[in-house]
């Protein structure tokens, strides 16, 4: 379920916000190095969502978002990755909660939990380069558990 939701949210966000068209989807493949934007979410479920992209991919997406002809600064590229993660995460949790659960989203530099196996992960082949999108979920508390 999570992978389908992640793919749907990531595809629509990259295509509608950054005008980067999805040409293919993988589950891992080659490492996508470079900058990353991570968003922490809390609500009925909590966890992290990360968007990672190579500098050229991030630059193209940022330039598309802002309608720039020139190369966007590193700060703008980083901010764009955070905002893309924010939009993907917002749509993901909204779809997962069927629109009725309230979630709080925040940017985070906290990346310790990202070392664990993600609950869902995709690598998008975009027309502006590859991008990795991954989701980590915190364990659900069981009633009566201390």
């Amino acid at each position, binding site marked *: 379920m999570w992978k389908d939701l992640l793919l749907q949210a990531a595809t*629509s*966000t990259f295509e*509608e*916000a950054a*005008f980067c068209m999805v040409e293919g989807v993988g589950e891992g493949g080659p490492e996508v190095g470079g900058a990353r934007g991570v968003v922490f979410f809390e609500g009925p479920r909590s966890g992290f969502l990360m968007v990672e992209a190579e500098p050229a991919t991030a630059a193209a997406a*940022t330039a*598309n*978002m*802002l*309608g720039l002809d020139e190369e966007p600064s590193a*700060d*703008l590229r980083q*901010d*764009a990755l*955070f*905002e893309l993660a*924010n*939009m993907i*995460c*917002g*749509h993901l949790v*909204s779809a997962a*909660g069927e*629109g*009725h*659960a*309230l*979630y*709080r*989203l*925040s*940017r985070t530099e906290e990346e310790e939990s990202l070392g664990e196996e993600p609950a869902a992960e995709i690598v998008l082949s975009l027309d502006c380069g590859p991008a990795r999108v991954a989701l980590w979920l915190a364990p659900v508390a069981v009633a009566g558990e201390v």
Partner: protein
Amino acid sequence: MLNVLVVDDSVVMRKMVVKTLRMSGIPLGEVHEAGDGAEGLEVVSREWIDLAVIDLNMPVLDGQTMIERIRASDLTRDLAILVVSTDTSPGRREALKDCRVSFVEKPFTPERLRAEALRVTGLEESIDVEGSAAAGGDFDF
């Protein structure tokens, strides 16, 4: 001329909103930006603002709290507010139902942002958009 405040913790998103409004044919006066709800309230307290475009998930002070404080003040209670957020769910709309706000979901189209900005400011009938980029989807980014 509309004085506008855009409140979002993303610089990129603030630039996207401002650029879209400038291209929309809406006559803009001063344009202010803030990175969180607290900064936004500070701008609202010292500047005349006609339209506030506000994100919900922000550090320091979130958008919903900012909006509730704007509505609680006699000086700002009638300010036109447009919420631009990933969270336009039924649950969020219910939480803000008494705050008289309009919603635009991220990512937004220029046409959608323009239409809601005109509607919430009551300018729908008075803006002449004939022949402008704003008339029918010819926003060229």
